[in-house]
């Protein structure tokens, strides 16, 4: 579990600081970003396995950020966090390539489980591409 790199994007700074700390306590390399622009900037300069992304943020909204991430770093898995669920946004997000949608507040154990699954998926995808490229 030790070297999983997670980026959490949420404009609620208190929530952000707490979850970053809790993930770090569990051995993750966790980093917080307060908005989409910051997140994209971080991704530009750092390798990340999984992004946890709040759907509703001022500035770039979650779906926009998701779309950009999947376009520029398609292997990075994104878990969407949403407080007020709209079915429409859920369908859109899944179509844009989100790994999962999680309702806030999420239990940390559930979230950890999902992060692990997302990271496993990324690994499988990388292996697949590697095989395809070496055919």
């Amino acid at each position, binding site marked *: 579990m030790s070297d999983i790199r997670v980026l959490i994007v949420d404009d609620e700074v208190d929530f952000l600081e707490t979850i970053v700390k809790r993930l770090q306590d569990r051995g993750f390399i966790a980093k917080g970003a307060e908005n989409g622009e910051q997140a994209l900037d971080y991704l530009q300069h750092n390798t990340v396995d999984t992004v946890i992304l709040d759907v509703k943020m001022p500035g770039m909204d979650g779906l926009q950020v998701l779309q950009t991430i999947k376009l520029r770093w398609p292997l990075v898995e994104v878990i969407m966090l949403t407080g007020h669920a709209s079915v429409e946004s859920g*369908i859109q997000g899944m179509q844009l390539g989100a790994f999962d*949608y999680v309702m806030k507040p999420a239990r940390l154990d559930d979230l950890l489980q999902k992060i692990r*699954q997302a990271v496993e998926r990324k690994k499988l995808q990388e292996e*697949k591409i590697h095989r395809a490229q070496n055919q």
Partner: protein
Amino acid sequence: MHASGRDMNQNPQQEQAPAWLEDDRLLQAHKLAALGELSAGLAHEINNPLAVIRQEAELLGELLVPGILERFPDGQDIQDSLREIIRQVDRCKSITHNLLNYARKNDPIIQAVDVNEIVEDMVRLVEKEAKCRNILLTRDYQRDLPLVFTDAPQLRQVMLNLLNNAIQSITGRGEVAVSTRRGGPSNLEVRIRDTGCGIAPEYLERIFDPFFTTKSPGQGTGLGLSISQKIVARLGGTIRVQSALGQGSTFTVTLPINETGSNHA
């Protein structure tokens, strides 16, 4: 919002996008599919010469031992130039990497999945909207189901589409019942039953067609079921539908358990 059965008969022109629009969208869909194939082919083709270029450049670098370079006035430039060639080749490699990835986007990634959990997660996502519309959501999940080897996000997408359809089929009060069960020795079933408007018999065989919709423009694109069916087929399963006009519909997704999950496409 959903047209009632009678509305559908009165407005047959509404059932489908105008021909020119449909053509355009179909074209778009075909284009994307073709682009996917093209880019995969292209990526493969380009990878081989790229590997050769890189290898030759490295070889050149080794041949130009420092002693030789010093005899040229531009020795350092030659070395820089070689390094740049290798750098740019690596850049091209990352482009082909992305192209291959794009082409494989729809390729399932197989993981062990708890279907009850996936279904419940998606039910929770639509719960609030259902409540707002006075729709009762009930669950009946069979416990101790085996894990299924399948593509989790794609399955989520299917569940959301079916749940969304079920909710949209109900005007006024109604019920959406979601259940899971072992369907046989090697498969599971997820069932989504609604007490909505039902589907006219003459439409039943068309609902999985791309762009077939009875919803008013802006309400539905008619892609939900066709996408879902494609996904489920790729995952080795089926979607069945039973419906009685005015009474409701039941969509049943059958998924193979695939005990030996394999990611070899």
